[in-house]
């Protein structure tokens, strides 16, 4: 317990839902307030900026569809990361796992003779498998060889990005692309269906929603979910209970990497219809998904909401560029700020603030 003047800070073990929601909103509000200053410095009235963004993203069908389109990969990666973070596995590698899925989908689409009705399912299955494989490697490295998960997953993003580059400049360069570094376009039977007048590849969206629900059930209702939670909350207890770290880590990264792989399938089969420069495929979704998962605080269902929020921020970033003619880096500044404040308010979550009127018992000296 700590006291400053009339305020008493008490530690609490588990933050309440209201506290989580309230403080998360507070973080977003602070970030928005600081952004106002930046808008203002650019000579754009913040009120005009926010109303324009609100109108153009949420006020039109087109805007909403754009938000949804951006939400899909964030949702899939985000749900996967929620599972991983729940077991305290720091998967920073969704970006590379997404690309792995995109590579597998491209292989199925261009280089296999799988007939039409099975082609798209095969792309998803192999995309999941490729992402899972890219996720399992760091899990094995961590449990068997104590290789730090943050480092291995981060480094593997770069390895996969260079691998994709090699593919599109080398063996997979499309003969119809006049020497440019793209694969050929996928045949039509490998294109995902879209919502009308939009680029929302709804099958991937459905898979994402299903994944969120399934993940929530796994975490709350199954033995695996229980083990994941124990490993994450208290490794010592997990050890006493005889829970296999290897098993849990493998499962967690299989799901986490696999879901990111599905996001990659969606991007190439739904939007690009070919493999291209890795930066243009992943677009930082894998990194942004870290914020999505962080904000969801261990709940896959909450990731639906938080991925929508960041889908909105991506769409708003495009709007800021087009409508307000502002530099594109502004989204980066905003994402950085919001991330800082999110982790900044974290500390508050574990403290309960109480106002004490009367000087009563002295519950101990300052310090926790």
């Amino acid at each position: 317990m700590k006291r400053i003047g009339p305020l008493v800070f008490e530690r609490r073990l588990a933050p309440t839902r209201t506290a989580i929601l309230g403080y998360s909103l507070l973080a977003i509000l602070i970030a928005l307030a600081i952004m106002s200053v930046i808008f203002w410095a650019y000579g754009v009235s913040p009120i005009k900026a926010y109303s324009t963004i609100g109108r153009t993203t949420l006020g039109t069908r087109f805007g909403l569809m754009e938000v949804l389109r951006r939400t899909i990969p964030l949702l899939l990666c985000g749900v996967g990361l929620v599972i991983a973070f729940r077991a305290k596995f720091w998967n920073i590698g969704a970006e590379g796992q997404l690309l792995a899925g995109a590579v597998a989908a491209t292989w199925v689409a261009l280089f296999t003779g799988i007939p039409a009705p099975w082609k798209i399912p095969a792309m998803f299955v192999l995309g999941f498998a490729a992402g899972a494989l890219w996720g399992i490697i760091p899990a094995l490295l961590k449990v068997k060889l104590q290789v730090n998960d943050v480092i291995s997953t981060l480094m593997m993003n770069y390895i996969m990005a260079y691998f994709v580059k090699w593919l599109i400049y080398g063996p997979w360069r499309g003969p119809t692309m006049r020497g440019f570094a793209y694969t050929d376009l996928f045949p039509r039977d490998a294109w995902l269906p879209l919502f009308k007048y939009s680029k929302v590849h709804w099958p991937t969206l459905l898979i994402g929603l299903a994944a969120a629900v399934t993940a929530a059930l796994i975490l709350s209702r199954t033995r695996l979910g229980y083990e994941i939670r124990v490993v994450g909350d208290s490794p010592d207890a997990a050890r006493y209970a005889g829970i296999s770290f290897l098993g849990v880590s493998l499962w967690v990264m299989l799901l986490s990497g696999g879901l990111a792989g599905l996001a990659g399938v969606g991007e190439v089969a739904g939007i690009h219809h070919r493999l291209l420069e890795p930066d243009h495929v992943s677009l930082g979704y894998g990194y942004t998904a870290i914020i999505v998962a962080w904000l969801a605080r261990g709940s896959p269902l909450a990731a639906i909401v938080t991925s929508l929020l960041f889908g909105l921020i991506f769409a708003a970033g495009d709007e800021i560029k087009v409508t307000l003619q502002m530099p594109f880096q502004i989204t980066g500044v905003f994402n950085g700020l919001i991330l800082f404040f999110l982790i900044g308010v974290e500390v508050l979550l574990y403290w309960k603030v109480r106002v004490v009127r009367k000087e009563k018992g002295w519950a101990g000296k300052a310090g926790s």
Partner: protein
Amino acid sequence: MRKLVLLLGIVLLMGLVALGAEKIKAGFIYVGPIGDYGWTHAHDLARRIVDEKFDWLETVYVESVPEGQEGAIIDRLVAQGCNVIFTTSFGFMDGTLEAAMRYPDIIFAHCSGFKRYNNMATYMADFYQVYYLNGLMAGALTKTGKVGYVAAHPIPELKRHINAFTLGVREVNPDAEVHVRWIYSWYDPAAAKEATEALIAEGCDVFAFTEDSPTVVQVAAENGLPSFAHYSPMLKFAPDYVVSGQLVHWEKIYEDFLVKVHEGLYTTENLAHVDYWWTLPQGAVELGADFGVAINPAWEDELKAYVVDHPIFGKISVYELVMIRHSQFGDPGITFDPFQGPVYDRKGVLRIPKGTWPSYETLVTMQWAVEGVVGPWPGEPEE
């Protein structure tokens, strides 16, 4: 659905109103940041020039649009009332075509691609003649007989440029080689720097490049070696060492195109065959390292002192040769092409027969390397 129809209606109406008032709102979509000091920078410079010049014209731009995202950006520009949209990256081709079909009342122009439509034109300002002229000078300046070339991507555009450059080098220095390094990026200063250093280590002493930064010019100058600038005015980055280079004037194309739209010559019906392939005669490109400076005066003497025995012009200094060739690309009527046959590739295959000029198709799909090119050449055709 009803809302969408309404929206489309409003958009159409706005478009019509805009056309009625003969106002044009042009949207420019860039793949890079306008601060790249290369491709996107040059397009944006041109946009600002035409924007200033015509009071019936309003322009907006969107920078750093990743490939695959152009469709959504076009939708937003249309919603904002743009009636002409330029997309400036090869990777925007399919997205632009889809948009052209989606918005039959908007005029599109796509840079560097090959797909056109009723309301979608293509355009390109090409440098191969200028690269050839620079090659003549590079051939005269190399002492080691090795010229370095730092190149972004192994695509036909760059292969054409390297080939034209090499033909120039060998015209005045038949034994000289052009050593090529690819950096696999339009913009990666560290890669460009190390590629240049690798070429220096191989003994190259004159440099040309195709990449979006002044790195090669800076590194060459640091080592006291001459170089040829690319794309943006780079003379100021190494005033004593940049000999010449190639500069772009996208505004010539933008001006021509927009004026014709304004005058009603270009409509949403007749663009399927409009393809700008503008070079020196149209003024879309310029020889030099800074506007108006074709050859750095500091290097004139050396170029004048280098005299070759030319099969057509006899004893002639390279300086004069460059001037003559430059005028042969001039308006009206081009009387010379760098790829004038016979041209053999480095595997000995005759690619352009004697006495002929390459077709446009040959130029834009060029995959082979001419004799004298040394180094890796991804996608090189078998014999």
